[in-house]
């Protein structure tokens, strides 16, 4: 049971969270303009590193905020978490 540091609620048990995979995969600015290949990249291709991984988590059973953190996928150790606390406007 990993302890996931929610930037708002503090460290909580992993079961309170929903995993969102790789961070920073932006929705294409104009999807109609990208090639099928690039669209497939957006839909289905994600980094899968052995080691440091920047990823997204949602504190689903808590404050319902998405946030980012970096975790080592070999040790499962959290390296640091996104403390920018971006608030939806």
């Amino acid at each position, binding site marked *: *049971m990993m302890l996931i540091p929610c930037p708002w609620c503090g460290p909580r048990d992993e079961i309170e969270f929903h995993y969102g995979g790789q961070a920073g995969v*932006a*929705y*294409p600015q104009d*999807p109609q303009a990208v090639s099928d290949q690039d*669209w497939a990249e957006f*839909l289905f291709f994600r980094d899968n590193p052995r080691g440091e991984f920047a990823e997204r988590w949602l504190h689903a059973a808590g404050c*319902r905020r998405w946030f980012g953190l970096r975790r080592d996928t070999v040790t499962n150790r959290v390296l640091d978490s996104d403390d920018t606390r971006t608030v939806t406007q």
Partner: protein
Amino acid sequence: MSRFRLRTGGRIDRDRPLRFTFDGREYQGYEGDTLASALLANGVHQVATSIKHGRPRGIMAAGVEEPNALVQIEKPFPEPMQTATTVRLADGLEATGLPGQGRLATDPDPARYDSMHAHCDVLVVGAGPAGLTAALTAARSGARVIVADADTEFGGGLLGTSERLDGAPADTWVRQAVAELDRYPEVRQLPGTTVFGHYENNYLVALEHRGEHAHTRQRVWRIRAREVVHATGSHERPLVFSGNDRPGILLAGAARTYLHRYGVVPGERVAVFTTDDSAYAAAVDLHDAGVEIAAVVDARGSVPPPWESLCTERGITLMPGSAVVTTSGRERIDQVRVAPWWQDEAAPGAEHTRIACDTLLVSGGWNPAVHLHSQARGGLCFSEDLGAFVPDGYPPSVRSAGSAAGEPTTDACLASGADAGARAAVACGLTAEPADLPRAGSVPVRSGRTVWMVPSPTDSTGDTQYVDLARDATVADVRRAIGAGMESVEHIKRYTTLSTAHDQGKTSGTLASGVITELLGRSTGEIGTTTFRAPYTPVAFAALAGRERGDLYDPVRVTSIHDWHVEQGAPFEDVGQWKRPWYYPRGDEDMEAAVLRECGAVRSGVGIQDVSTLGKIDVQGPDAAEFLDLVYTNKMSTLKVGRVRYGLMCHADGMVFDDGTVARVDEHRYLITTTSGGAAGVLQWLEDWLQTEWPHLRVHLTSVTEHWATIALAGPRSREVLSRVAPGMELDKDGFPFMSWKDGTVAGHGARVFRISFSGELAFEVSVPWWHGREVWEALVEAGEPLGITPYGTETMHVLRAEKGLPIVGQDTDGTVTPYDLGMGWAVSKKKDDFLGKRSFTRADTARTDRKQLVGLLPADPDLVLAEGAQVVEHPELPAPPVPMLGHVTSSYRSAVLERGFALALVEAGRDRIGDTVHATAGDRLVAATITDHVFYDKEGARRDG
């Protein structure tokens, strides 16, 4: 009292005798005994026969590491594969010896299990000398401490020895330590509790045995600790020699434990074979308890001086530079043969001394119990000094202390525990005072001779040299594995099944590495061990299931009207976690009859359904319209205040994943609905896009699913019913047009009423706050009674919508279906620049015009109802497989209004096939059906206004 139970001594209660049965014979033991100590006290050594070779096997250890003494508990309740050394004796206990396979009870387990979360600054695992000083030191610093020990009492190894601390019996100090721990309000003591797993971020799980008659038989503790001290002790290692498996052969430390803990001696004439110092204490203690010590055989060249004089004083024969090379005896050992074996000699000499004995104590050194340390991803290295694997490198906030860290003496264990406890406290930001430690005055320990196996003059293959007694794996087996080309300890373990039994190799693991090392001619460090995995000791499935049994397995969600449905005898359908009424049988109606009646009522009169389970989300903000335009396939920004629109949602891959209605509440506010099972997923998905892709959009989402109880009134007479309880509300088709909503008063309560229909009939949905749900429902039922109002369930709702060709997401779709496939291109905006899913529609495969499309299917035989899931093929005769399939039936019912069976199906290029005859599987045969449009009833929509 038997000759093996001493008149005094031990920690048993001689005033509380307990009767128990083993292998059908009745015996007596005492409160405080284990099954093993009670058996030994009765002179019973052999517990079972071995799994593979069928050899007699006896009690070898006194704790969880026991490889042999497996028993099946029969009473109080059947439980398989317990070790006699860990079964607490109880009155009426019945057990039998097991040769390897246990037996599960056929009756349900009546016991209760649960779990408990706990937090602490410092978790100390083990309450022996190191664990107690660690706990005391941390507790004195003010830390929140949990100290857990598998044994029923704290003290660990101190309870099984004759050791003295500060001149007094060790248990005096243990009592004082426990009493001191009792005084700290922030210390939790968990005796009888085995920590069996160590996971990330110092999350440890432990099993507490609360007693067979306790309210909760076992409890799983889920402990989150800031700092952990593993004071888990060590396990004595047996020695590998020919015939090392006979009953009567015990670990030396175990014999000491039986003596001091239970007042039991294992035999009358005891030989000892050791490679280190610790077995001497057993010899001396047993001698002092009146047991004859036949000889102490030490593989080292000389006897350590303090022990030499203690033994000589007692007239104990010492045989340094020797080894036991073989044993004899039928059901129990009766003789050992000893040969000279000096340290630098490859094999023992040929001259044998025969020594008669009924017990042989062995000690091959001690393996630190590094299981949890290793689970926590701590490193290990092989210590040549100890001849064992010891911790080498700790993960953050984890440390080992005492013999678990390789400390050889009680004094060193006490000090190392105090040190670990202090460092743990300091790591928590507390100040730890140097501990005032008791002194054991331990004699210095001389290092042992690491002996992996004693070469045998009679057994050159090693067929009777057992490495793992639990699996009957011998040196010969290891030789065979190596001979087959195996070099990795993992392969050899698998080839021989070494260390895979109930004890997971607690006595055999390191030994196996050593034997492999020797046979391969490598170093033990290079060979390594196999991975230590949770659980440390076996845990019952039921204990891990805990309270999550029956209805508590997964939460049951109910609506505010639930009890009414129960009172009407409705069976329920599971939809996600919700319970939804399926249909309402009257008299002895079966489901088909009930559903035909309910459908008929809605089509010709009026029906009422509880639709409170639909997900409801309040969407507010200046950019709400723009946001909804992005997440629905159709346009929501053009919706007028007061109106409602059906909406489809696709994932970015273009596949339909939810649907519902969108009502515009005001310029900047919408109320949207989702499917019952999809509500949480949709909200999460919307938040994802809103927070991470479009944070510039000023929109807030709030779930209001349970705020509203929602009741659907459907049928040509629904208006009439509603008018009776909503007298002030304008309900005619112009004043309250289709796809609009209004606020008003229904049955005396503020309500929001929607004119939407999932059946094609005139229909209303009435929403009131949760607590008025049942009241308003009953008012509507009462008002509708003269009109024959009929409650209907999910099945009828499904039939009615299917007659109208409306899909159910998840039933008529499976994650591979686009809006176009559903024939719902009308719900996909052509005007919007973008919405989720749009880009995917132009991919090669998604743009195909011959994709599977939702169509109607009318069986040639009108009485026939096709099976949902039936496959559709082109021809009436089946060719040899694989048979090309056109698609499958997604929904199929008997229709009251059509007076026949009908179905919806996803069929390849289905819309081009309308009018064609295809064939659907029905058991082993095919039945003909005609492809039709997917709307079967009231295509013109004439009925929706009543």
